């Protein structure tokens, strides 16, 4: 634990002011020299303290989509309220859009009703909507960064738990429920308690074939699916310094799978280079001013953390899940754990997982038969994911026993991938090249597993039924591992298949 240089007298003083003493709270009240990015962003956006002790926090950017917003607009109408800052609200459609049928009306009348409701709500309230014909539609967590809307030192909320993705830019980004979507629409604020901060360092260089997806699966495996409860995760260390902006997004995206609602990386030159020239990024003279301001939000070198953990990049291998939550993960060369290898508290869930996954304790995960390969999602549906896979996929063929689909994260990603010839590589290999959306990550559109099909998936959740079939099975992994499984028809070590060293 690293609590900085607080003395007991300060602690006692503050404790006297607040019966509900929590370490994370007292940092709000005592002026301190060193701060984390979370402290600084919180101070810049705190509107006031609410009677119950929560902060009324200004949300700089509100992202909305078709699944969790229609009820919020309904509540707004019931209360006779309007969207307070429509120019700080941005919408897109992602969860329900079919990826093989882009013409409306959609075959699914419910999906059609949802897109029309969002279109109407946005038009009536003056919210910018990156609609299907705009060429800018896509998964909300890919569109925000791509458009340059996601910026350092800002607060972001969206009715989707993977909003933590935007933390990769040094933003504090929260997944929220629909009542909070209503709150943010009506007041551009929400009531929230300040989380504690756990600094997670990863040091050194990742081995070939090991990716940021493996890093976050490893972190969740080590800290548990509820290890982040009450914390924001601040990721850093030399591995993160070397990561591209898109690799950082993959890690921040899955913070919530470790129980942390917020995950972030301090902004640096990599962040600024990514943002420069994007449609909503500051321009001309404003750019330098913005960069100076953005830099000031980074955590101070001696900032106090509630917890610090360090991992070595060299210790991480390609990681795959074997169970029904993202913490049930092993390295590709490991065996499915036996009960004896697990802590007592994890055994019941492990047993349930083995039944659902049709796996046996002690069996190698390598070689497990795969029916479907899904490449996409807000975790791994970006251009760099497709580029990396295409490098190795060229000249290879998908196994005839596997249905393989690529779903670019946005129309922007799709267009660039087409121009770069990536789409052709995927098609030639036997992947179906689809339109942008969430697709088979959660199966709200027609892209769903059938029966107990097993899917090698670059997405973020392996919950029972997650991919649309109650008995469907999901194994999470990096995009290149998905490609390897697609080619061989079984869970495969991509490093061996592609002779990486």
């Amino acid at each position, binding site marked *: 634990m690293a609590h900085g240089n607080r003395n007991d007298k300060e602690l006692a003083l503050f404790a006297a002011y607040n019966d509900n003493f929590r370490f994370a709270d007292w940092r709000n009240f005592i002026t301190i020299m060193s701060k984390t990015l979370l402290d600084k962003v919180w101070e810049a956006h705190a509107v006031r303290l609410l009677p119950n002790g929560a902060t009324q926090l*200004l949300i700089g950017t509100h992202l909305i989509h078709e699944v969790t917003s229609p009820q919020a607009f309904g509540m707004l109408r019931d209360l006779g309220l309007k969207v307070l800052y429509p120019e700080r609200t941005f919408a897109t459609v992602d969860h329900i859009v079919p990826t093989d049928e882009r013409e409306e009306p959609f075959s699914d009348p419910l999906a059609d009703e949802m897109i029309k409701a969002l279109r109407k709500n946005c038009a009536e309230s003056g919210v910018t909507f990156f609609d299907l014909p705009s060429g800018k539609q896509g998964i909300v967590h890919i569109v925000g960064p791509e458009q340059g809307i996601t910026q350092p030192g800002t607060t972001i909320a969206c009715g989707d738990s993977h909003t933590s993705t935007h933390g990769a830019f040094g933003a504090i980004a929260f997944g929220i429920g629909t009542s909070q979507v209503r709150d943010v629409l009506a007041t551009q604020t929400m009531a929230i308690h300040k989380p504690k901060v756990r600094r997670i360092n990863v040091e050194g260089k990742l081995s070939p074939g090991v990716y940021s997806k493996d890093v976050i699966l490893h972190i969740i495996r080590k800290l548990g699916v509820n290890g982040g409860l009450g914390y924001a995760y601040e990721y850093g260390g030399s591995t993160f310094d070397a990561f591209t902006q898109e690799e950082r997004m993959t890690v921040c995206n899955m913070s919530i799978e470790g129980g942390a609602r917020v995950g972030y990386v301090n902004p640096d030159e990599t962040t600024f280079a990514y943002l420069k020239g994007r449609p909503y990024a500051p321009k001309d003279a404003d750019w330098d001013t913005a960069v100076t301001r953005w830099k000031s939000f980074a955590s101070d070198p001696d900032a106090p953390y509630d917890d610090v953990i360090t991992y070595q990049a060299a210790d991480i291998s390609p990681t795959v899940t074997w169970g029904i939550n993202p913490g049930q993960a092993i390295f590709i060369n490991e065996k499915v754990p036996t009960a004896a290898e697990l802590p007592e508290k994890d055994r019941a869930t492990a047993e349930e997982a083995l039944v659902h996954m049709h796996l046996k304790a002690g069996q190698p995960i390598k070689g497990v038969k795969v029916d479907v390969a899904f490449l996409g999602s807000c975790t791994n549906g970006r251009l760099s994911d497709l580029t990396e896979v295409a490098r190795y996929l060229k000249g290879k063929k998908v196994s005839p026993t596997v249905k393989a689909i690529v779903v670019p994260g946005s129309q922007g990603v799709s267009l660039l991938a087409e121009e770069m010839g990536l789409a052709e590589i995927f098609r030639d290999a036997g992947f179906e090249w689809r339109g942008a959306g969430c697709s088979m990550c959660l199966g709200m559109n027609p892209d769903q597993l059938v029966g107990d099909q097993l899917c090698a998936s670059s997405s973020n959740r392996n919950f029972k039924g997650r991919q*649309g079939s109650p008995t469907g099975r999901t194994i999470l992994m990096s995009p290149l591992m998905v490609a390897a499984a697609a080619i061989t028809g079984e869970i495969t070590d991509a490093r061996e298949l592609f002779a990486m060293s």
Partner: protein
Amino acid sequence: MALEKIIQVTGRGVYVTGEDIDTDRIIPARFMKCVTFDGLGEYAFYDERKNPDGSEKPHPLNDSRYLGAGILLSGSNFGCGSSREHAPQALYRFGFRAVLAESFAEIFFGNSTTLGIPCAIMSKQDIQALTGLVESNPALLITLDLLEGKVTAADMDFDARLPDHAREALVSGKWDAIADLLEGLPDIQRVAGTLPYFEAACVRV
């Protein structure tokens, strides 16, 4: 906005086994194709309760002995995963008015509190003991008392705690934050005025 002061919740209990019960399990995504929350109740724990052909699986929520239970008991990290408010909305519409578990995922906890559904934390041992009482007598009425921080059932009581802020919000009838937030409007505009990116919002491409 006058809201009910939620001080005590009384009802029959039902225990749903498992740790890390995620919100996909509480309400599968395919049932979220809707523009209102009405009608979500019948899909609570749908894939746990029903076979693909619609027939019922053995599950506590299908067990006639627990029909009409208003208090849900479960394990740790309840409500993890997706932020979908559809999950507590479905539980509420199924008939649940409180959830007792070893721990709760943060977004689910906040969503439930905002709907006036108390989520109280109990030790594993106490959940097991309470489950034992409920299973031996499904008609047993159990009461969660938020002020006391206790669950009482038969002649036994157990610690059942909520974080102070949530307990206060529920017992004072201020569990929906919208009224408080709206009162802050002048401060909202003041703080927004200090942030360059709010002004820059008007610059369009």
